[in-house]
């Protein structure tokens, strides 16, 4: 054997090993188990937080493990994407190696008594007449009947729901279509979010669409529950003016569950909040650090050195009796919570009513003269949406086919002579025997009546 032949043989062996491994159901299920385990980690470990969050909320060794192994962003980690890749590979190999080649067993003579589901029925009468009755019985029940002369004996084969053997294949194809749809989104789709203050205009970088927020309305209903007064959010509505590719300005409303479509990109009502104006003065003069624009919750600005002020939270209603935030989110007596951050670490926090100021010491004073509501919009362009929908439908069709239609084959043989016969019948299915046992009993009982009397309204 030459070196090239050795190489080819070795390569062939490796390919065979690969195909054998990836076509194995156990391997596929092992991948499922790893996939499930990684997914579960993502459920338990909070995702997408800053490192400080993990150091603060987990024991140091666990926090180190989470950060080192990318468990804080597990769904986008190499391991997670890799396991999905392996599952898709396994699915493809399994489809071509196992599912597609799976064929019906050939029509062959069997020893009826050796098939677990079997029965024999004594029948009297003319052979032709009995055979015709049997055939009519099966055809009336929707069975596909074929006759074969095998080893000098006449056999009748009845098949049902053979097409359902392709259910798994259809389900696998559904997965592939879904994967194609999501890949299409990754390849050419985009998404993002924007927060627009009332009266302001946002330009969407990917599309150039302009969206101006005319007004944002919210509705909270106070509801008395057993646990106390609850302010239940009822509606969030953005009234916007937008300009798409055609350059024409139009008005529209965006509600939760009712996105706005601008040139194929959908805009969703995702959030709202309150922007606040902060004015930092030193000895009565506005400092250079004082922010020029309204800040949103979570924004911060430097106050010199490694110190910064963070706009932590908007408080809609401060209880005038207690001076503490009430659970009414509507801005009736509003304030903002401001936090001092030194060297990245949060320090003291304080509440400043809107329209007032607090002394920060050293001649510094922080005022919050006004606030404005903003609307948070998410946008997304997803060209693969249709494919994902089709894939989901195909997947479901495949699953239902595989679960609810049982491909079965009956082997029927008539033994005997003159007018005394024994009808032998055996059944096989692709899901074992127990699953067909009750139906087989009913079938045999009905077949007995049919074979004797020609009654065909019995059983499928």
């Amino acid at each position: 054997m030459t070196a090239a032949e050795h190489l080819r043989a070795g390569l062939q062996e490796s390919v065979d090993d690969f195909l054998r491994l990836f076509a194995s159901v156990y391997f596929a299920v092992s991948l499922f188990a790893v996939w499930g385990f990684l997914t579960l980690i993502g459920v338990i470990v909070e995702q997408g937080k800053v490192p400080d969050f993990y150091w603060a909320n987990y024991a140091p060794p666990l926090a180190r493990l989470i950060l080192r192994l990318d468990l804080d962003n597990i769904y986008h980690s190499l391991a997670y994407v890799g396991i999905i890749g392996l599952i898709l590979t396994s699915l493809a190999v399994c489809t071509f190696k196992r599912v597609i080649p799976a064929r019906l067993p050939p029509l062959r003579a069997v020893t009826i008594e050796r098939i677990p589901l079997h029965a024999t029925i004594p029948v009297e009468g003319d052979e032709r007449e009995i055979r015709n009755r049997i055939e009519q019985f099966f055809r009336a029940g929707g069975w596909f009947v074929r006759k074969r002369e095998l080893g000098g004996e006449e056999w009748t084969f009845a098949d049902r729901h053979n097409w359902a053997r392709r259910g798994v294949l259809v389900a696998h194809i559904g997965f592939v279509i879904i994967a194609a749809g999501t890949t299409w989104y990754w390849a050419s789709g985009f998404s993002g979010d924007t927060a627009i203050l009332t009266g302001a205009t946002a330009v969407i970088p990917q599309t150039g669409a302009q969206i101006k927020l005319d007004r944002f309305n919210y509705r909270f209903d106070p509801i008395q529950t057993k646990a106390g007064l609850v302010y239940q959010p009822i509606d969030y509505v953005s009234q916007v003016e937008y300009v798409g590719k055609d350059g024409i300005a139009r008005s529209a409303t965006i509600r939760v569950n009712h996105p706005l479509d601008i040139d194929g990109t959908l805009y969703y009502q995702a959030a709202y909040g309150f922007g606040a104006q902060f004015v930092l003065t030193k000895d009565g003069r506005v400092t250079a650090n004082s922010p020029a624009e309204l800040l949103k919750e979570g924004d911060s600005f430097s106050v010199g050195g490694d110190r910064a002020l963070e706009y932590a939270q908007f408080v809609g209603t401060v209880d005038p009796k207690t001076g503490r935030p009430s659970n009414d989110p509507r801005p009736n007596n509003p304030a903002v919570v401001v936090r001092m951050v030194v060297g990245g670490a949060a320090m003291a926090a304080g509440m400043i009513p809107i329209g007032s100021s607090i002394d920060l010491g050293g001649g510094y004073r922080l005022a919050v003269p006004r606030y404005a509501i903003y609307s948070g919009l998410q946008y997304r362009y997803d060209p693969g949406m249709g494919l994902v929908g089709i894939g989901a439908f195909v997947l479901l069709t495949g699953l239902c086919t595989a679960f609810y239609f049982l491909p079965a084959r009956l082997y029927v043989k008539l033994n005997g002579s003159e007018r005394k016969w024994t009808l032998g019948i055996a059944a096989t299915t692709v899901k074992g025997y127990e699953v067909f046992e009750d139906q087989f009993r009913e079938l045999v009982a009905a077949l007995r009546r049919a074979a004797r009397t020609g009654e065909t309204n019995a059983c499928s």
Partner: protein
Amino acid sequence: MQLDQILLAVAIAAYVTGALVLIAYFLSRSELMLRIGTPLAIVGCVAQFAELGTRWAISGIWPLTNLYGSLSLFSAMGVLIFLIFAFRYRVWFAGGFVLLIAAIALGYATTWNEGFMPPVPALQSYWIKIHVPLVVSSYASFMLSAVVSVLYLIKYYGERRFARGSTMNVAAATPAGSIPVTVQSTYTALADDEIVIGTPRGDTPAIAAAAENGNAVALWLATLPSLAKLDVMIYRVVGVGLPLLTIGIITGAMWAKESWGAYWQWDPKETAALVSWIVYASYMHLHTRNAWRGMRSAWLSVFGFATIMFCYLGVNIWISGLHSYKV
């Protein structure tokens, strides 16, 4: 007392009484108990659906917008699916446990009842009338499959115990002692009228032998269906639950697309549902292998239901996310 509260009380009373009666049936196989327990299950189920409908009619608010509503539907659907399977496949022996779980779920649900609350904006969608019933029905199906799986395991380990205790090597004589189900060798031909039909000989010979010797536990275990039949029942119920869960996840993704702008946000609820789906998809794949039918797949079904409970209650209650609609 309002009509919905009366119906709720009727449902709980029917479930609790029905559970006790059907557990008595499970232990005694008294037909009288079955004849009493079945109508109680039907009454409880009807009362519960009526209660949900009444809440909807009184308030004009779709009743499945909170944990109280969904748990109510879970117990009602659990009983309904049980009744359908019981009438079709004679799984009455599982009824006591199903009703007990339904009663517990309903009792627990009442602790989350905060009265009539209008839905938050994200829940104001026609999808809530499609997605939630589908998902909750899948949970209910898996509950029934878990109950039958536990009964399978009781019988399976009972067989092992009796096989160990017997003098002859029963485990070697039958596959049921060592491998849960090997269909080929469990069949033999029995005469039935003029027909000779292949039927299961019984895959728990040690239990049968002990029952013949008058062992009370074995006598009771012998009245349960064969292991092979129980395995098929579990498969059938999972075969209902998995497509429902799949449609539920798909409709949830479509709703998420409409509400949040993305099919999939890796929200804890979504990912926990995905974990459950993976477990049951694994069950279905492994059930195609003879070596995995029976005991192993029964354990997998029980594990699957544990993941469902985590997804349903654990995530709702302990982990905050986009699906945190507790009250």
